[in-house]
């Protein structure tokens, strides 16, 4: 895949290195001289384009017309929005991803400015911390999409309410699916008749409200 990253700060650089390691083509655009000096030490020179983030000539030189994805990671929300808008409107880029700097501006990062995916660091952090505080032994394995759903893992402790109950009789929360059970190191595909045992590790896909209810179900009585 060919990805253009706008902004070579920490976020942009991390993303660039990750994508290069996965074998993707990336070009990165940066305008700040002090950031460029560091960027040249970390990334191949031919991937770096120097100049204003919002210069159409530079974006074209960086190959925006051929890009599969444009990711804007600058520290300016207006810049990120304007670039996503131009990427779609002027260059028909299929997918745009934008970093949200000020959470109060998050409401703009959608189809209004042709942003397909908004990455709101502050919100993701706040949600993670909230969940870490409230979920006890439950572990977050993976955030799905924009962090509304996640894959969680919970070990069923001694004396849990769900012990001895079949899956079909368990009052599962609405937005929650048990995806797999790990028993004695082996994966069991859960069926309605599967009965929970002590020490089972349960993998579930759930939203955050579902995760809290699940935690109560699996807590000791």
């Amino acid at each position: 895949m060919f990805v253009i990253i706008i902004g070579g700060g920490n976020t942009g650089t991390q993303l660039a290195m990750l994508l290069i390691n996965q074998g993707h083509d990336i070009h990165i655009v940066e305008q700040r001289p002090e950031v460029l000096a560091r960027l040249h030490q970390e990334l191949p020179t031919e991937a770096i384009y120097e100049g204003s983030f919002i210069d159409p000539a530079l974006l074209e030189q960086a190959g925006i017309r051929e890009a599969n994805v444009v990711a804007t990671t600058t520290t300016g929300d207006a810049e990120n929005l304007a670039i996503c808008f131009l990427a779609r409107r002027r260059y028909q880029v299929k997918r745009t991803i934008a970093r949200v700097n000020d959470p109060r501006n998050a409401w703009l990062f959608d189809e209004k400015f042709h942003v397909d995916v908004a990455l709101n660091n502050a919100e993701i952090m706040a949600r993670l911390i909230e969940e870490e505080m409230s979920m006890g032994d439950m572990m977050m394995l993976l955030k799905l999409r924009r962090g509304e759903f996640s894959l969680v893992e919970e070990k069923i402790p001694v004396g849990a309410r769900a012990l001895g109950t079949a899956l079909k009789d368990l009052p599962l929360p609405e937005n929650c699916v048990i995806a797999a059970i790990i028993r004695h190191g082996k994966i069991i595909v859960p069926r309605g008749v599967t009965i929970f045992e002590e020490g089972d590790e349960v993998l579930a896909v759930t939203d955050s409200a579902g995760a809290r209810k699940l935690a109560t179900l699996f807590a000791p009585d």
Partner: protein
Amino acid sequence: MNIVIVGCGRVGAELAFRLYQHGNRVSVIDHSSLAFDNLNPDFRGHLVEGEALNRDVLKRAGIENADAFAAVTNSDPLNAVVAHLVRIVYNIPNVVARNYDPRWRSMYESFEIQVVSSSSWGAQRIEETLYYTEIRCVFSAGNGEIEIYEFSIPPAWEGHRFSELIPGSECQPVAITRAGTAILASEDHVLKSGDIALVSATLNGIRELRQRLARQES
């Protein structure tokens, strides 16, 4: 009219005061309260300190009841983004943005926003004035791509036709004023020394016209 302005630098403060003087209700948003010092002490209006992309800040400025909106900060991305958002979210029909850096003017075209490039327009007017002071620009269309110029016919052009003086496709006759009365000018109009001529022209057209006027005089 209820008018919201984002940016209270030199342009914003001047615009706010002019609109206020002409009887409009004006709200001015700036992220720094120090910027409000730019306003004329006689200005009366609503001052809102905050970031223009913040919904609450826009609401406090009365965006929901605004008839017109101007984005005149010194950031082109911000002007374009906030102008676009008030148009599509709050359906404000009359939206104008200031283009700060002429290099980024084309961005506004993608957003389809009315734009005033104050720096390139100013530079162009100064350039024209430096070349030839006897031709005055009296009206600018768009961002100065076409302008209407006024000048008096020098004695050397007495008896010539208007079409001989004006350079073809990039310059067209508009009107001739003789003895205080204006008439619509045609290309075969015969000129008299002291006539006041009005033409519409591009920058190239007026440059050529200046050369013709100067050639005849020497």
